[in-house]
C-alpha cells in the first residue's frame, strides 16, 4: 500500500483539500501536491504501460526525469498528451487519463507483447518489417500506426494564449537550488544584472529534503535568508516555474515559464517563452539519480531512492510500508533513515560495496536498520506491484540467498550531473572515475562571439555533489561570471558547511555483476521504450560500436524523457560489451529542449491572423464585399474569381473570360511588382539584369523582358517601361517583387558598387487596374479628354493620362490578347478609379475578373507564367523565347551559363501547345511517356504538362508543356497517363491557341 502519512509533508497544505479525477475516478489530494504524490497517496502506484511490451509501469522519480507517469490531461482545446505527473502541480478539477493501453490500464490487450518479448529484440523494427515487401503496406503499417506513439495528438485548436518575452541579462542562473541561489548571490552582489530561474514552484532544490547545516543553521533557513537577500537586490530577477529549455550560440537562451498550468482559470497567458541573451549562463541544474540494473527493476514500486524520501518529506506520502534500499553509494542511506523516521519499515539495506558506507551508514545502523554489504537484488517479485526481492551477492551470478518481502525497492546507482544545458551548445564532458559520472570539462566550455566560454557550471551540475562542495563551487561560479563581465565580486567568504565523511561510490552497471542471460533480459535500462541490458548487449554483438547508432538501433533514450535515467547506464553496458572504457564510448548528443515544451509556447502570439501580415490592395474591401473567392499569392490575397450566388467557381471563371473577350473586363493588378531603377548607369545595369537590350528602349515605350540567374535559369519576367533617360520602371511577377528587388540590390551592392544606380520598390505605392476587352478604349474615353486612339497611343507605349482629378500612368500592354490598358494611379486613388470604371463600364456589362481568368486567357495566348512554365531548371531558350535574348550584348546575368554544354543540348525539352484529342483537360503536371523503361523499371518519359486549363473561348481543354524535340513534332500525338487511371492523348500544336496574329490587341 502507498498512502498519506499522518504527519509531515513540507510542501502540502493539509487544510486545503483538492479533488481531481484519474481515469474517471474521483480522488483527493492537498494543495502543494504534485499529481504523482497525490496518486501515490491514493495507492495508485501503477500509472501506465510501457511502449513496446505494455508492461505495467509505476512512478519511478519525483522530478523532470520521470519516464513512466505520463498522462493525457485536460479536454477539448486544453487536451494535452504525455504530461508528466511528477512536474504537474495538483489543482481542483484536474482530470487525467492514463495512456498506451486498451481497453483499460488494468486489462490491456497489448500486454500480450510482453509474453512475446523474445520475438521483439533490439532492432526489431528494422529486422521484422523488411520482408515480404508487400506486407508493409497491408499488414505491418496499419498495426504499427494503430499501436504507435504514446498518447494521442490533440484534435481541437489550442484554447489558451501564449507569449514570447525578449530579455537581456548579464548573468542567468539556471536552477534555484542552494547552488543556484549562492551563485546568483555572488554575481548579484558584484552588481551584475541577474535572472534566476527555477523549474519547480519552490526554491532550495534537493537540500530542502536532504538537510544539513550551513553557517551553523539548518539549510532551510539558509535558503530563506538567501532568497531574502536576492529579493532585496534591485539588479536580480527571480522566477519560479521556469525551466532553462535550451542554450544556443552566443549566449542565446530559451526560458520556458509555466504561468497557469497550476491554476488554469487564472487570467493571462498559459506559457511564456523567454528569448534571452545572456553574457554568462550559470548552470546550477543539479544531478539526477541513476537506477540500478537488476531483474524486475521496472515493476511498479521500484523507485529511485531519492524519490522515495521526496514523497515522504515533501508530501507526507508513504510509497509503501516496507522499503528495501539497494545502493552502491552513501546517499541512499538518507532514504533508509527518512523511511525509518516516518515510522515505516526498512527490512534491509543492500549495499553492493563490500566495505559498506560511511557516516550515514553508521547512523542507519544506530537506528537498528539491517545493512548487508556486498549484496544486491537478484530479482524483484511481483507483476503489477513489488511483493519482495531475492537477495544475492553482487559479485556472483545471482544465486538467491534469501527472499525478503517488501512493497517498495528504493534504488540508487549514484548521481549524474545534469550536464544538458552545458552540452547543448558544445560544452565538452570529462569522465570522473572517482564519482563514476560525466561532468563538465571546465577547459572546454561553449564559446561566445568573442571566443570566451559563456557557460559556467555550478554545484552538483559541475560534479560537486555534497552540500559543502556544491556551495563552494557555486560561490566561485557566481564570482567567475561577474569577473568575466569586468565586475568586482564582494569580499565575503563562501558559506561554511561541515560535510559528513562519505565512503566512495563503487560503480555498479549490472546487478549482480555476473547476471545470467535470463536476468539480463529482465533488467531494464529505458523504462518508457522498453530497452533492456540484453538489448544493448545484442546491439554490441551485432556490430554497433557507436553510441549514437546503438541508441537508434535499440531506441535507448529516444522516448519523451530522452534518456535522463537510462543513458549513462546504457553506455556503461555498451562499453563493457565492447571491452573499452566508458569515456571512449562517450555520450549521445544532448539536444534542447531539456524537457518537452509546448507547441503553443513555441508559436507564441504568431497564430491565426497574427501568424503573418496580410497584404491588401486598395480594392480589397470591394472584392470582399462581392464575395470574391480568394487565392493566396505570397502574403497577398487576390480574387480567384467572383462567383455570383450559387454559381460554381468554374462557371464564374468561364463567365468572366467570355465577358472580357466579348466586351469589357476589369482586373485588379495592383499586386504586380513595381521597381524603379534610376541613375546615370541605369541603362547599363538594366542590360545586365535582363536578357533583352533595355538601354535602347525609348522613353515612353514598354518592352517585355526576361531575367535570369547567374546559373542561366529564368527567374522572372515582366514589362519594363522607360520613364526618362535615367529612369526605368520594371514590372515583376506578383510573388517576385521583393525577391527581384533583393536580386538587384545584391548585384549593385556586392559586384557593381561603383555604378550610379538606385533601386526602389514602389509596389505598394501604386494601384494598378487592367481595363481589358474590345470596349476598353470606349470606357476610358468616357473618363478622359486625352488621346487614347490607336494612332495617338500605340501598342507597347505608355503615357500620362488624367481621369478627372486623378492623374494616372497608362500602359498599352496586354496579357490577355485583348485590347488592353493598364492604369497605374497612386494607391490612395485606386478604389476611386475602380469605382469610376465600374460605373462607366455598366453600359458595356463591365465584369471584374480574377486570377484564374487571367491565367486561362494568358494560356490561350501562349504566354508563359513564371512558376508554371518555369521551375528553376528552365532557361528562356526552352520556352522559345530566343527573340527576347539580345545577341548584341557582351554580357548579361546568365549569358555565360547558357553557353554551357548542357544548356545548349538539342535534347532539352521545349515548349509546345498540347491539344487533347477528345477535348478533355490533361491533369496539370502529367508526364508524357516514351518507349521502354529506365534502370528502375519505370516508364521512360519525353515531356510534361506545365499548364492545363479548360478554355471557355475554345470550348476545349488546352495545355502547354515541355516536350523532347517538341517544336519539330507538330501534329504528333503523344500519351499522358494520369494518376486517375486514364490516359490522355494530346496533339503537339503551336502554344498560341487564340488570335495568332494579334488582331484583337492591336486595334
Amino acid at each position, binding site marked *: 500500500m502507498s498512502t498519506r502519512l499522518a504527519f509531515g509533508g513540507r510542501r502540502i497544505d493539509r487544510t486545503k483539500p483538492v479533488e481531481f479525477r484519474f481515469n474517471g475516478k474521483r480522488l483527493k489530494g492537498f494543495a502543494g501536491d504534485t499529481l504523482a504524490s497525490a496518486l501515490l497517496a491514493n495507492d495508485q502506484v501503477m500509472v501506465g504501460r510501457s511502449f513496446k511490451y505494455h508492461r505495467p509501469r509505476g512512478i519511478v522519480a519525483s522530478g523532470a526525469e520521470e519516464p513512466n507517469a505520463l498522462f493525457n490531461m485536460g479536454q477539448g482545446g486544453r487536451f494535452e498528451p504525455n504530461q508528466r505527473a511528477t512536474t504537474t502541480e495538483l489543482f481542483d478539477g484536474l482530470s487525467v487519463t492514463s495512456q498506451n493501453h486498451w481497453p483499460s490500464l488494468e486489462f490491456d490487450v497489448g500486454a500480450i507483447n510482453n509474453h512475446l518479448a523474445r520475438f521483439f529484440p533490439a532492432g526489431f523494427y528494422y529486422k521484422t518489417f523488411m520482408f515480404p515487401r508487400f506486407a508493409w503496406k497491408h499488414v505491418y503499417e496499419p498495426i504499427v500506426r494503430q499501436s504507435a506513439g504514446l498518447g494521442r495528438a490533440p484534435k481541437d485548436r489550442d484554447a489558451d494564449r501564449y507569449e514570447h518575452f525578449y530579455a537581456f541579462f548579464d548573468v542567468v542562473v539556471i536552477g534555484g537550488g542552494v547552488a543556484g541561489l549562492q551563485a546568483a548571490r555572488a554575481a548579484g552582489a558584484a552588481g551584475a544584472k541577474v535572472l534566476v530561474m527555477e523549474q519547480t514552484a519552490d526554491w532550495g532544490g534537493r537540500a530542502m529534503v536532504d538537510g544539513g547545516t550551513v553557517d551553523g543553521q539548518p539549510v532551510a533557513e539558509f535558503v530563506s535568508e538567501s532568497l531574502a537577500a536576492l529579493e532585496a537586490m534591485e539588479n536580480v530577477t527571480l522566477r519560479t516555474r521556469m525551466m532553462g529549455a535550451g542554450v544556443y550560440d*552566443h549566449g542565446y537562451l530559451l526560458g520556458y515559464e509555466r504561468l497557469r498550468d497550476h491554476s488554469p482559470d487564472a487570467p493571462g497567458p498559459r506559457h511564456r517563452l523567454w528569448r534571452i541573451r545572456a553574457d554568462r549562463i550559470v548552470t546550477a541544474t543539479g544531478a539526477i539519480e541513476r537506477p540500478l540494473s537488476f531483474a524486475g527493476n521496472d515493476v511498479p514500486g521500484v523507485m529511485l531512492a531519492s524519490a522515495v524520501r521526496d514523497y515522504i518529506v515533501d508530501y507526507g506520502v508513504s510509497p509503501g510500508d516496507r522499503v528495501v534500499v539497494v545502493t552502491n553509494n552513501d546517499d541512499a542511506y538518507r532514504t533508509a533513515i527518512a523511511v525509518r523516521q516516518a515510522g515505516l519499515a526498512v527490512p534491509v539495506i543492500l549495499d553492493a560495496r563490500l566495505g559498506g558506507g560511511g557516516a550515514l551508514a553508521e547512523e542507519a545502523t544506530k537506528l537498528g536498520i539491517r545493512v548487508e554489504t556486498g549484496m544486491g537484488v537478484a530479482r524483484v517479485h511481483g507483476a503489477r506491484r513489488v511483493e519482495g526481492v531475492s537477495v544475492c551477492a553482487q559479485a556472483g551470478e545471482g544465486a538467491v540467498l534469501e527472499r525478503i518481502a517488501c512493497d517498495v525497492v528504493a534504488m540508487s546507482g549514484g548521481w549524474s550531473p545534469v550536464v544538458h544545458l552545458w552540452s547543448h551548445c558544445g560544452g565538452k564532458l570529462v569522465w570522473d572515475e572517482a564519482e563514476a559520472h560525466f561532468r563538465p570539462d571546465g577547459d572546454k566550455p561553449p*564559446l561566445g562571439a568573442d571566443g570566451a566560454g559563456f557557460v559556467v557550471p555550478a554545484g552538483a551540475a559541475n560534479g560537486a555533489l555534497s552540500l559543502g562542495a556544491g556551495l563552494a563551487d557555486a560561490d566561485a561560479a557566481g564570482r567567475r561570471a561577474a569577473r568575466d563581465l569586468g565586475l568586482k565580486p564582494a569580499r565575503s567568504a563562501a558559506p561554511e558547511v561541515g560535510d559528513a565523511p562519505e565512503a566512495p561510490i563503487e560503480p555498479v552497471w549490472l546487478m549482480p555483476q555476473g547476471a545470467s542471460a535470463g536476468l539480463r533480459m529482465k533488467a531494464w535500462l529505458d523504462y518508457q521504450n522498453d530497452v533492456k541490458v540484453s538489448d544493448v548487449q545484442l546491439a554490441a554483438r551485432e556490430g554497433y560500436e557507436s553510441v549514437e547508432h546503438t541508441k537508434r538501433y535499440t531506441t535507448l533514450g529516444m522516448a519523451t524523457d530522452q534518456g535522463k535515467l537510462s543513458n549513462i547506464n546504457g553506455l556503461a553496458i555498451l562499453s563493457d560489451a565492447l571491452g573499452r572504457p566508458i569515456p571512449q564510448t562517450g555520450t549521445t548528443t544532448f539536444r534542447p529542449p531539456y524537457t518537452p515544451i509546448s507547441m503553443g509556447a513555441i508559436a507564441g502570439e504568431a497564430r491565426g491572423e497574427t501568424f503573418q501580415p496580410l497584404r491588401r490592395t486598395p480594392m480589397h474591401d470591394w472584392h470582399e464585399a462581392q464575395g470574391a473567392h480568394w487565392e493566396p499569392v505570397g502574403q497577398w490575397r487576390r480574387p480567384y474569381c467572383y462567383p455570383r450566388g450559387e454559381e460554381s467557381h468554374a462557371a464564374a471563371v468561364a463567365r468572366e473570360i467570355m465577358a472580357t473577350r466579348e466586351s469589357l473586363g476589369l482586373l485588379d493588378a495592383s499586386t504586380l511588382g513595381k521597381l524603379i531603377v534610376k541613375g546615370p548607369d541605369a541603362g547599363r545595369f538594366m542590360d545586365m539584369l535582363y536578357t533583352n537590350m533595355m538601354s535602347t528602349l525609348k522613353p515612353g515605350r514598354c518592352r517585355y523582358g526576361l531575367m535570369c540567374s*547567374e546559373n542561366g535559369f529564368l527567374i522572372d519576367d515582366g514589362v519594363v517601361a522607360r520613364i526618362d533617360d535615367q529612369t526605368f520602371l520594371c514590372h515583376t511577377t506578383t510573388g517576385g517583387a521583393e525577391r527581384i528587388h533583393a536580386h538587384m540590390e545584391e548585384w549593385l*551592392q556586392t559586384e557593381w558598387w561603383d555604378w550610379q544606380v538606385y533601386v526602389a520598390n514602389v509596389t505598394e505605392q501604386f494601384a494598378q487596374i487592367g481595363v481589358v476587352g474590345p470596349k476598353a478604349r470606349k470606357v476610358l474615353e468616357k473618363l478622359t479628354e486625352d488621346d487614347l486612339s490607336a494612332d495617338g497611343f500605340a501598342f507597347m507605349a505608355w503615357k500620362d493620362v488624367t481621369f478627372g482629378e486623378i492623374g494616372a500612368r497608362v500602359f498599352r500592354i496586354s496579357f490577355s490578347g485583348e485590347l488592353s490598358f493598364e492604369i497605374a494611379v497612386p494607391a490612395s486613388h485606386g478604389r476611386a478609379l475602380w469605382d469610376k470604371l465600374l460605373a462607366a463600364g455598366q453600359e458595356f456589362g463591365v465584369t471584374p475578373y480574377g486570377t484564374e481568368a487571367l491565367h486561362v486567357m494568358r494560356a490561350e495566348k501562349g504566354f508563359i507564367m513564371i512558376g508554371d512554365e518555369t521551375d528553376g531548371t528552365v532557361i528562356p531558350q526552352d520556352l522559345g523565347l530566343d527573340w527576347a535574348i539580345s545577341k548584341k550584348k557582351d554580357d548579361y546575368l546568365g549569358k555565360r551559363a547558357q553557353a554551357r554544354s548542357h544548356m545548349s543540348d538539342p535534347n532539352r525539352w521545349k515548349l509546345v501547345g498540347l491539344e487533347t484529342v477528345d477535348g478533355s483537360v490533361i491533369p496539370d503536371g502529367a508526364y508524357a511517356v516514351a518507349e521502354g523503361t529506365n534502370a528502375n523499371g519505370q516508364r521512360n518519359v519525353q515531356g510534361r504538362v506545365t499548364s492545363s486549363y479548360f478554355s471557355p473561348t475554345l470550348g476545349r481543354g488546352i495545355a502547354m508543356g515541355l516536350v523532347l524535340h517538341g517544336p519539330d513534332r507538330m501534329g504528333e500525338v503523344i500519351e499522358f497517363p494520369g494518376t486517375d487511371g486514364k490516359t490522355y492523348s494530346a496533339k503537339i500544336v503551336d502554344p498560341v491557341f487564340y488570335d495568332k496574329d494579334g488582331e484583337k490587341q492591336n486595334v
Partner: protein
Amino acid sequence: MLILECPCCGVKGEETEFHGGGEAHIKRFGPGSSEEEFHDYLFAKENPRGVHFERWRHVNGCGKWFHVARCTRTLEVFGSYSAQTTEPPQEIRDAITARRPGWRWREFS
C-alpha cells in the same frame, strides 16, 4: 543564433535579423571565361572548419550587404566589414591572426 554587427548601420543584431549569402570575395567570371573558371565561380565553394569569410545581408534592418570573418568551428566572430571590397581589410586579418596564428583562406593569410 549568432550575434552579428552590421558595419553599415552599426546595429548589433540577432541572426534572424540577417540573411546569410554564402562565401565572400568570389570573383565573377562571365562570357569569355573557360568552362573550368566558370564552373569554379558558380560551384566550387570553400567549406572550412575554422576561419571563414562570408557575405551577410541586414535584411530586417538597413538592407545592406556586408562581410563577416568568423570561425565555423567555434562560432567566434573576428569582425564584420564592408561588402564593397575585394579582399579582407588589414585590421580584420590582424584580428584573425591574434586568435588563429598562421591561418589561411584561399589566397589570403
